[in-house]
């Protein structure tokens, strides 16, 4: 009985090819409040997130990625 997901992506190389924009959509936090035990409140990351995406496209246009086709990414 499996407890994990079907491992459609196994190799590190494939994972590295994940679109950065798709990845940041998911890993940059939003809406989480944390206590004084932690270094950084996620509200701060929210602000960073908003300004950072503008920064990404201006500093590294290649990071924005080409308009993707239907290859499933």
């Amino acid at each position, binding site marked *: 009985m499996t407890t994990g997901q079907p491992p459609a992506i196994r190799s590190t190389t494939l994972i590295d090819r994940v679109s950065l924009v798709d990845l*940041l959509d998911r890993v*940059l936090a939003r809406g989480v409040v944390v206590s004084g035990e*932690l270094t950084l409140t996620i509200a701060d990351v929210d602000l960073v997130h908003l300004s950072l995406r503008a920064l990404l496209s201006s500093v590294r246009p290649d990071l924005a990625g080409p308009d993707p086709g239907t290859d499933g990414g």
Partner: protein
Amino acid sequence: MAEQCATWVYAVVPAAGPVPELPPGIAGEPVRLVAEGGIAAAVGSVSREEVGEAELPRHLRDPEWLERAARRHHRVVSALAQAVPTVPFRLAIIFHEDGGLRRFLEGSRQQLLSALATVTHRAEWGVQAYASSAPPPAPADPVAAEPVGPGTAYLLRQRAERAAAERERQRIWEAVRRIESSLEPFAVASRVQPVSGAGRQPASSSMVMNISYLIDDGLRDEFMAATQRLAAISPGVRLRVTGPWPGYSFVEIGEER
């Protein structure tokens, strides 16, 4: 004595059960488990030079640092998610030291157990739709009841083009609605993702839909088949499916109680 290292959290997994071999973390550090009350956090000890209170915001604004950290973080989370139910943590959850982490695990135990249940035997899939970049065919010059001057002819053409563009928008909107209503029944839950804005090239303003679906593993093949069918019957709209993702969009680690 000031701590040299802080505790960066990647994910929470069940404390019991197999743990796969894990890649190094965001600073190249080994990833270890901290278990408390049946749940375990996958963490790494990272220097304050990387993730201290002053350094982290600066690093998060550095595109190269952010990309490296995001990819390495995701690589650890993905390795876990391929083997065990995994509650992904986003960037950046950092504890001053393990003691604070343990208190958090203890205090948020019910929430984390609930999140584990949410992701067990499930994966996140991203479905994006893009309006075809080909413009709709130009309408033929409208036939007027009487001959009209060039100015009027121009205005009539403009009106016809706007009407054609509106019909195209309507068609795309209907296609998106059809895609959403077709895929929703497969999903445990869905989340709307950003569609436009910074980080995507202007051409990607042709993105008209960006939704994450939480899909039971058992329905994965049917879900994929449904997306392929929808791609075939939606002229003017391109579908792009990504996944399986760890369930980033379907867990919220909230305020410590």
